Structures are given as C-alpha cells and as structure tokens.
C-alpha cells in the first residue's frame, strides 16, 4: 500500500478553523506563514535554536519550525496575531512597547509569545534551571531577572535588546500577578507567585508609533530578513540571556 504523503487538515488558529491541504513535510511555521498568511511568526534559524517562530500550542510555548503541521491538527494554536483582545494589546505586548523591549522587531513576536507562557509557567509553580531550591516545599521562586533570563533563553535577539526585554517581562508579570486572583491555599504545589520588583513602572515610555505597534503585533519585517537572521544568530555564544557578565546584570537595574 503506497502511503499518502499529504493530507487535508484543519488547524485551529487564534480561534478560527482553517482547512487546508498540506504535504506532510510542511512545518506549522510554513503553514502559518505561507498558507494562512499569518506572517507574524518569524523564520529565523528553522532549526529550533532561535525562538523567533514561538507560538502557543494548547497553551504551551513551542517552536513552530519543528512542529509538523499535520501533527498540529486538533490542537489549539495561538500566534502573535491572536494574543491581543481586539484593539487592546496583551499586557506583555504593552510592556514591550512601553519599555522598548526590541530594536529591529524580528524576534519580537517570538519573544512575546514566549514571555506570555513564561509568566504562566512561573505562576503555575514551575521551577527553572536557576531556581536554587526546586523542592516543591520551597514554593515558587520570585521571578527575578536571573529567572527571567534563564526562562527566556530560548529566544535570541541579535540586536541585543535583552536588558529591556527582561524589564518588560518583569513588568508584565507584576501586572498579571496583581490581576490574578490570589491562590486559595498556597500549598507545596502552588505557592504565591511573587515577582521581584521591576524597578518601578516608570520605564522609558514607548514612542508608540506605527512601527512599534507593528513590531509587537508581528506585522513588522516579514519575509526578507531570513538571511540576516539566519542560523548565525542561533550559534552566537554572546546572544543568550544570562550569558553575559556583570554588564548585563548591572544594566538590568532591577531589585533582585
């Protein structure tokens, strides 16, 4: 029996169902960009190393470049185009705007999708590689700059906007923690999700121009940047959160 190498699938993206034929080799990233015209998710390295293609699948951040489209059928997919509520930006988008959490904007949709999930993972009590005591009895670690850098390390930024990105994630986490109902009984599995002080909410005000809005909505630079933002970015040893030395730490200017 000859195996079929293509399928007609239905993808649930940002609350809308799309039925489309796909060659099985099609990644979710290519299906989004080339078939559904959702070009907010960016192709950086196409090898799962840069995070520019980060989307939420069943609420979990994932790299769309290593996710086959056919295997994403039946799952709930949220891209950068789907995180705002109408004209009201997601708090993470707003924080990136207000605090200049980007420069060229190419990695920004992935950074924002990742940050949205980071805040949820932290609120759910997930530890990270820099959490000093990961026993459940130790409770949830404060979302310090070190925690943010580690948790966001799957998203590279070649412009090096990390200092502002960390501030933006911290502020959004603080806002969302304030908006979230207090946990009923902070037991061993879910302590209070305290976040570190983000150095006040008076960050540098975003210019709020059209370019900025485009970047956080994912409509910024679209296809042409593939070369410049290619695999080189992913291998750059200097390009990770947390890899920097004292300069990074000082630059963040956060109470940790």
């Amino acid at each position, binding site marked *: 029996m000859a195996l079929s190498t293509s399928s007609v699938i239905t993808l649930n993206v940002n609350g809308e169902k799309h039925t489309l034929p796909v060659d099985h080799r099609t990644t979710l990233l290519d299906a989004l960009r080339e078939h559904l015209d959702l070009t907010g998710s960016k192709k950086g390295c196409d090898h799962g190393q840069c995070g520019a293609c980060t989307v939420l699948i069943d609420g979990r951040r994932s790299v769309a470049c290593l996710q086959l489209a056919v295997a994403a059928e039946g799952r709930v997919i949220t891209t950068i185009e789907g995180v705002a509520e109408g004209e009201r930006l997601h708090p993470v988008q707003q924080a990136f705007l207000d605090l200049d959490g980007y420069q060229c904007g190419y990695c920004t949709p992935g950074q924002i999708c990742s940050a949205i999930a980071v805040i949820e993972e932290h609120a*759910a009590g997930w530890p990270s590689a820099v959490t000093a005591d990961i026993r459940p009895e130790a409770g949830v670690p404060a979302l310090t700059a070190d925690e943010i850098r580690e948790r966001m390390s799957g998203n590279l930024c070649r412009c090096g906007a990390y200092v502002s990105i960390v501030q933006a994630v911290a502020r959004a986490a603080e806002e969302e923690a304030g908006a979230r109902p207090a946990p009923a009984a902070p037991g061993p599995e879910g302590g209070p999700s305290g976040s570190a002080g983000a150095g006040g909410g008076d960050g540098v005000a975003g210019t709020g121009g059209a370019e900025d809005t485009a970047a956080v909505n994912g409509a910024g630079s679209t296809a042409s940047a593939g070369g410049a933002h290619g695999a080189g970015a992913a291998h750059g040893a200097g390009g990770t959160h947390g890899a920097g030395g004292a300069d990074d730490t000082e630059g963040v200017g956060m109470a940790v």
Partner: protein
Amino acid sequence: MREFGYQRVFDVSGAVALLGSDPEARCLGGGTNLVDLMKGGVERPSQLIDVRELPLDRIDARGGGGLRIGATVTNSELAAHPEVRRHYPALAQAVLAGASGQLRNMATVGGNLLQRTRCGYFTDTSKPCNKRDPGSGCPAVEGEHHNHAILGASAHCVAVHPSDMGVALSAFDAVVEYETADGPGEVPLAEFYLPVGETPHLETALPSGALITGIALPPAPVAARSRYRKVRERASYAFAIGSIAAALDVRDGMVSDVRLAFGAVASRPWRAREAERALIGGPASADAFAAAADAELSAAETLPHNGYKVTLMRNLVVAVLAELAEEGAR
C-alpha cells in the same frame, strides 16, 4: 526531505503493529530532534507514527517507592512534577538544564532517550560518519572534537550522547520499558546504550519494532539529596561540555551511599561506578572525592582538543560532592 506518510496512533498495540510492519517507520513524539534531522537528510523515514496521543502521559508512584514515567510525558511535565522534584531533584534539574522552555514543552521522555548525537559530522550529510554511514570513517578523530568523548569511545566514533535527563536517570538505575508485537519487555538504562566498538551505528538495545512505553525509577532514598550540574559554553540553552548527576549520603563522616553519573563524556550517559566503589564506606573528604574521580577518569583516553574534560570532570566531582556533604552535615 524525503516524502513520508503520517499516522496518528491512539493505543500501544496499534503503534507496535505499525512499527513492526515497516522498518523505515519512525515514532514522532515532540519531533524536536527527529524533524530537525529529517530537514538535514540524516533521518529519512518512510512514515511517521505520531505517538503523542498514546495513553503514556502519566507519572505514577509505584508501590514501595519509585516512579513510573510514561514515554509521552513531556520534559516540562517531568521537571515540574512534585514527586520528581521531591525524591529525585537531580532528575528535575537535569531536565531543566536541557534545551529551552519551548523545546522542553514539546520533547517527550521516550524521544529524549532516543535523541541522536549533535556531533557536527553526524549532522552534516556531506561529511563521512561511521554512525550515519557505516564504514565511511570518522573525521572527528582528527578534526573538530573539542566536545567529544573521553570515555568508552573507539577509533570508529568519538561522539557523545547529548541528553541531560539520561545522566540523572543513569545515576538512579532507571529501567526502560518497551512493547513489541511479542509483548512487553524491559532493559536497564545501564544496558540500553550499546558499546561503541566497531558499530557506532548500532546505538541501543531496543529490539527492532519496539516502542518505548516508559521509564521505571526504583526507590532510591539517597536520591532525595542529589544534584545535577552542567558546564557549557554559554550560561543557558546549550549542550553540555561536561555534566554530573550526584547523590550522596554521609553517616558519621563516612559515605554510606553515593551515586555518580557523567554527561557529555561518552556515547552514553556514563555511570561512574569506579568512583562510587572508591567512595563507599570511606571518608567524605575532598581528598577522597578527588581520588574517586581519578579512579574513574584513569580510563580516559583524550584527543588533542578534549583533554580539558578530564580536569573539568574531576573538578565537578569534587565540587558537587563537597556541596552535598556540607548540606547533609547541616
């Protein structure tokens, strides 16, 4: 990329039947390694059998202690699980030290065990590689090998296994459970990865057509005080150049139980049994830790650019055991 068929399976028997009928089929879990290797032409499956919907996504306590971890549990779920963090903290730390948040959300435990080496010659189909193309040679021996093996390698292959999770599992005597058309089977992790020898392309003892269904972790009280430390070329999101999973129990200043396993030094997670033998019953002192490390590393065979790993691993053994001893004394 070669064209391929795709089928989603919902029960283990269905998956095993498909696997048994097509030796070129591959299981698709998170796909974080397999899809990448397919893009590069290293893996060329005829079809993918998507195992993500199999009912193997649970972590269960076992009677008498220990855990059973289903094969489709994601790395994230494993690392966040309270029983894992409480009783096998080094395992949670190892998983958290690997890859990125995005990849840990996708990757599965079964796939983690079966991931392939990141040796640059293996992943580049324009280069010879005995693991990918048996008999074609190993350019790493005379080429780029600063992150290659110092233990258990051969002239045919010096690649290292990339898993962090496997190192902690190795320290805690994990057992791999699988299913074939003939029924269930199991193999200790210590025997799961085959010696390199002259056949680096033969990597595991998993029978042909078998599906990994889970991992059994036996009870190990010593594991409650355990640690994973990973050294890499950047602070996060990189493969290890050396790592260690260690657990230590000290009574009256003497080592009453100890577990040690090394990562990024061999073609498999390297259980440091010589070091354990040297330590057990002896003093919990820095000198004893160093002597134990030397006992293990005396078998090391280095290449021109990876000799630093011997020093690195020795220092890791001494530092991590000293930390565990100090915490235990409090």
